């Protein structure tokens, strides 16, 4: 039970073992564990950031959607308005055109009537003169009685 030179051997072994454990186990393992801790921390932070960004993106998407809806509604309203205008315009154009055509037709009718009247008048004049000539039995000199004939024609 007394202390022997075994002590010296044990001291050497112990010191060497401490050195070895420090160099090959404690050193690398603690470094690695610190690294892992950092990586986990970073990962959690990144996840948190990602979540936040996702929330922001969702919010943005909703905003965009609402805006788009508003815009679509606006466009529809505008186009409806425009369509109404076009219809109104077409209607008024048609009305104007119709009136114009009506007027033109009326004018033509008037013209035709006048022309017929003129022709009729001329015919009546010549008939009247022919009748008068027969009554008078006398050839009427057209040139000599042109004034008279014209008067007649006017009176008819």
């Amino acid at each position, binding site marked *: *039970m*007394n*202390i*022997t*030179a*075994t*002590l*010296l*051997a*044990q*001291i050497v*072994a*112990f*010191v*060497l*073992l*401490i050195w*070895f*454990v*420090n160099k*090959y*186990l*404690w*050193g*690398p*393992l*603690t470094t*690695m*564990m610190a*690294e*892992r801790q950092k*990586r986990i921390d970073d990962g959690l932070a990144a996840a948190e950031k990602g979540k936040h960004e996702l929330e922001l993106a969702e919010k943005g998407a909703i905003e965009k959607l609402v805006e788009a809806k508003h815009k679509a509604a606006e466009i529809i309203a505008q186009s409806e308005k425009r369509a109404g205008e076009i219809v109104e315009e077409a209607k008024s154009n048609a009305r104007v055109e119709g009136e114009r055509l009506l007027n033109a037709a009326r004018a033509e009718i008037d013209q035709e009537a006048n022309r017929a009247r003129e022709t009729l008048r001329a015919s009546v004049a010549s008939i009247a003169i022919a009748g008068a000539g027969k009554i008078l039995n006398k050839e009427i000199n057209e040139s000599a009685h042109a004034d008279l004939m014209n008067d007649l024609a006017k009176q008819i």
Partner: protein
Amino acid sequence: MASSKTEQSGGSTVEYIQHHLTNWCVGDCDPVTHKAAGFWAFHVDTIAISIVLGLLVVLVAKRVGANLQTGTPSGFQNFVESILDFVSQQVKDTFPGHNPLIAPLALTIFVWVWLMNFMDLIPVDLLPELGKLVGIEYLKVVPTTDLSATMALALVVFALIIFYNFKVKGPVGYLKNFLFHPFGKFFVPVNIVMTAIEEIAKPLSLALRLFGNLFAGELVFLLIALIGGTLATGFIGYVFWWPLQVVLDLGWLIFHLLVITLQAFIFMVLSIVYLGMAHTEDH
């Protein structure tokens, strides 16, 4: 219990225990009792077994240290990591300030002392009997039941305590500690004696506590082994004593598993505490 078949008297019981408590001695040894006669005797079994256990630590350390998985550690790395975490937590809790040597030192003490203590749980006759087969007459398998081994650990810690006392407090500061502690400047001679005792008590208590616990534990294992050995004579004896031995042995094994862990832990924590005291200026 092969060795006890021929030893049935009280004298051979003592012989059995004596034999188990004798180291494999080389050098300055007594030829009759086979005990160490002077300082220059080497206990080959203590040295060999502790070095083998140390090499086991080295091997495992090298393997784990070389194939570290940063992302998802494998099973064994987890185990090593949890021990390492445990030790570093102890260091953080009890050691003031920062010293990169303390935690690896504590880890080495804990693991190595635990492994040496663990040799106690191997059946007491197994390794000595195997040793006899290859011509080894005496074999004491638990290195921590050799006072030289525990004293070696304690002295390394003691050397570190003195080194850090000098380094942190300076020679003058350390001397002041001897002169004016614990009773102030009017009791200088008393202080010197008290502080010297306090300092010397540190390695002594470390070494003797571990040695005493493990030696006593080994002795109890030997006594339990004797129940089925020398006491069991005849058929009735075997039927009665043998189950008793099994039950007692199992009970003591389970209890001792706690003891060896606790002793390794205490050695580690006290080393940390003593070194922490060396690092602090005032008491």
